[in-house]
């Protein structure tokens, strides 16, 4: 069956495309950022000074912006998501669970520009009014990111809880434990790895989220720890400046993209690590 053999090879080519694509992405982004590493130099690239007109290409402010907004997003989004997952799997009456599940799916489907637009017209003015600042900054970005990581964490968390063997719960309840004791002492510890993976994937989404963050973070290059001061993130800086950047400036932006890629790779590898530990 020669034909069968060709088809198998064709299908294998389709499948290997996923691996090929990630290699290509790495290769091209690395190649484009190479001038930044050789001509601008690593110390300049990771310094705190960002002023492309003067040849300063430090991404520290953006790196910190990315980390802080991700952390903020998870701080709000993870408890909400895990709580909702517990609710879905253990507490909710089935009709209510259906409503929540559909709501979460819908929330996951809302385009990030639309959430960004919502942040811009509602959230930023609201923060501006209660704090007296301009409203843009890490705080606004964190809230927007919380909304975006919520569906990821909820869906994966609920799936983890659902896949636990029912004997665990039955044994705990038979011993006279209350529902909360069962959840806290039996189910959550048993599903620890899965929930951790859910949070890490949420983190990946938060680090990579671009448009929604760009619209509310303020897009300045100042390094600040004040959540109500405008600042920037790696993604927001990329998307704001990519249009007109040339030469070293462009290479520096690609270097930031490379950092983003490496961050997301670290997350993927750590997920592998978490799940492998569980299997062993």
């Amino acid at each position, binding site marked *: 069956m020669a034909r069968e053999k060709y088809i198998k090879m064709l299908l294998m080519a389709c499948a*290997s495309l996923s691996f090929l694509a990630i290699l290509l992405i790495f290769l*091209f982004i690395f190649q484009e950022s190479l001038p930044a590493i050789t001509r601008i130099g690593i110390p300049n690239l990771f310094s705190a000074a960002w002023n492309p007109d003067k040849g300063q290409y430090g991404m520290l402010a953006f790196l910190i912006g990315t980390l802080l907004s991700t952390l903020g997003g998870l701080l709000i989004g993870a408890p909400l998501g895990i709580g909702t997952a517990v609710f879905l799997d253990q507490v909710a009456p089935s009709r209510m669970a259906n409503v929540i599940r559909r709501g979460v799916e819908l929330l996951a489907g809302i385009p990030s520009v639309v959430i960004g637009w919502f942040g811009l017209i509602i959230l930023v003015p609201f923060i501006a009014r209660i704090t007296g600042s301009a409203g843009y900054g890490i705080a606004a970005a964190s809230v927007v990111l919380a909304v975006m990581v919520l569906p990821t964490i909820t869906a994966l968390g609920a799936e983890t809880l659902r896949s636990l063997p029912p004997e665990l719960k039955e044994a705990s309840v038979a011993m006279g434990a209350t529902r909360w004791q069962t959840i806290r002492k039996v189910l959550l510890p048993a599903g620890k790895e899965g929930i951790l993976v859910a949070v890490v994937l949420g983190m990946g989404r938060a680090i990579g989220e671009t448009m929604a963050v760009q619209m509310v973070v303020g897009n300045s290059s100042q390094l600040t720890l004040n959540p109500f001061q405008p600042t920037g993130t790696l993604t927001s800086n990329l998307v704001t400046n990519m249009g007109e950047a040339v030469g070293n400036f462009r290479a520096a932006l690609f270097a930031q993209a490379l950092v983003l890629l490496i961050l997301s790779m670290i997350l993927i590898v750590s997920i592998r690590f978490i799940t492998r530990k569980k299997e062993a």
Partner: protein
Amino acid sequence: MSTDLKTGVEIARPSVEVVGDLCEFKDSRIEGIIQQSIARNEKRAHFYDRVATVTVWTLSIIGLGILAFIIFVILYRGIATALTPGFIFGKPQALKEGGGIWPMIVSSFYLALLTIAIVLPLGVGAAVYLTEFSREGRITRLVRFGADSLSTVPSVVFGIFGMVLFVIYFGLGYSLLAGAFTLALLNMPTVMRTTEEAIKAVPHSYREACLSLGASRWETAKKIVLPSAMPGITTGVVLTVGRIVGESAAVLYTVGLFVRKVPVSPLQPAAPMAANIWHMYTEGALVSDWMRVANGEAAFLLLVVLVLNLGARLIARIYQKRLGMVS
């Protein structure tokens, strides 16, 4: 008193009577204390249980509330300020007020169509390979690792990768086709996964029956497995269309931000709604009613995505019903 056998030293050992006394003592007082503390613990446990129940109810309702609030605000603003037939079917304006968004709507769907045309064969092919033509091994692990990695790559990175590879290197320029290739890679993992799940749900007996009649693997996959997996694949495609229409970061620097006319050829630049909303916000100060345009566009985009999501669910349910009647 008794004597230690090794040292001969007399040591005190409680007699049986003393132990009995202790038991008596425990019965009367400690038992009471223990009972009380058990009751208190139980009460506390029930209190915490109540608190936890209220908390998770509240958290879930907050989540649902956020969703409802976002949808309400976006739709309300859009409908109140912009969404009229004249706006939806109107021509965009770059310098004066009163622009519409028809070319953007067409761009979004055109891009989605092209992307699906590219990603569907690739994703389905990959899924068929993984489920029907291979055993778990080094290759499948590599493929899965690739797909997992692809799905965590930030979309803005896909965007600039697409810009370098398709727009510049392959010389496609800012065009629907360059964007479609980029988005095909971006959506490949999702299409692969949903197809794989749909294929895995097909009962093994179907395949066995077909193979036992002398059909080859590919014939079995083509004539039996894929048709049976169609409902799942269709649902996945509709959801992917929703994702493509909503995608902006990967589209900005591959397809374009603003056009005046409806794009005709896939080699022309276009301006999908999601990208254009962002354009309105960043450079929109060129037209004084940029806020109105963005409001209307956001509302329309949200409506499209909601309809696609509900549509995907409807398709799944219709298929389920039909399958239920057959079996």
